[in-house]
């Protein structure tokens, strides 16, 4: 019995030490990791508007797909959307202005090469950019599930865009 208590205490002390060390390392690296996340987000926004100034706005979204909304200084709105594609989450930005989709860029996608990954291809990007918000956003055959999710996300953004007072 005494042995078991000794073993349990030993395990407890080691766990506590381990936890303490990890808490320390976490503190040291936490800020740097956050900084990197913010910088990479900015880098993605700049892909759509190389010279823009961005401001994050609060929003009310029922679909749950829209994660962040940014207002660009020229009046456009950028929506950061995260949808579940074929086998993993697809995270992308869509910029809406003047009744049209003016920009679309994929931040992260982890799908089957040649199939779901095509949502990030230039071909698809070009087919989306410039379409009016009233028209149907095209799907990709062979990547039905991933592109349907992407289109759902874009449609949620269009709905939100109108409610935010964008043009």
């Amino acid at each position, binding site marked *: 019995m005494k042995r078991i208590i000794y073993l349990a205490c030993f395990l407890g002390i080691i*766990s506590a030490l*381990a*936890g303490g060390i*990890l*808490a320390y*390392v*976490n503190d040291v690296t936490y800020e740097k990791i956050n900084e990197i996340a913010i910088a990479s987000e900015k880098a993605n926004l700049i892909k759509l508007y190389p010279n823009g100034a961005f401001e994050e706005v609060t929003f009310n979204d029922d679909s749950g797909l829209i994660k962040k909304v940014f207002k660009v200084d020229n009046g456009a709105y950028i929506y950061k959307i995260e949808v*579940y594609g*074929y*086998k*993993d*989450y697809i995270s992308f930005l869509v910029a809406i202005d003047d009744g049209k989709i003016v920009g679309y860029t994929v931040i992260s996608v982890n799908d*089957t090469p*040649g*199939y779901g990954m095509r949502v990030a291809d230039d071909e698809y990007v070009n087919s989306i950019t410039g379409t009016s918000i009233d028209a149907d956003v095209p799907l990709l055959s*062979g990547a039905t*599930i991933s592109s349907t999710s992407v289109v759902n996300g874009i449609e949620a953004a269009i709905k939100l865009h109108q409610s935010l007072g964008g043009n």
Partner: protein
Amino acid sequence: MGNLITMCIAAVLINNIVLTQFLGICPFLGVSRNKESAIGMGLAVIFVIFGASILSYLLYYYVLEPMNIEYMNLISFILVIASFVQFTEMFIKKYSPVLYRSLGIYLPLITTNCVVLFVALANITSGYNFVEMMVYSLSVPTGFMLVLVIFSYIRERLAIAPVPKYFKGNPVALIVAALMAIAFSGLAGLV
């Protein structure tokens, strides 16, 4: 519902954990020498992954996150897995001594099986809800067992085939795995 079925098919066939994601190779090469141990190992792994994933999931969302100590996820998951494997070992020892003897040392080695930790971690990083997590945690090890059993059938034949000297054993097994990988990759674009 359709989403769940798609996830299941994807995890078992299209993104098969062994042939596409390269996890679980150690037991794949080690236990697949005969059919019975392959089936036994496969079932044990399904049981362990399903149980350990549920426990890890609950632990993460009800203990680690509220207390803001998400960085303890690695230690706590692996301890949950180790304990669950220990528990499974005792269970099998009591109810099926034959299976226990045939699995031998590979049973406690399920703890270091990459697949178990991978599923526990992936459930969190993919942001699954409880039902999706359960489907994923059942589908992935089913894919593992499927490949393991197919492989064991092939290996039984391979053991008596005329294989070149230095390829005997594991190297030729890996070539077979390569051929299976090609076969399974033909399923891409299925759904």
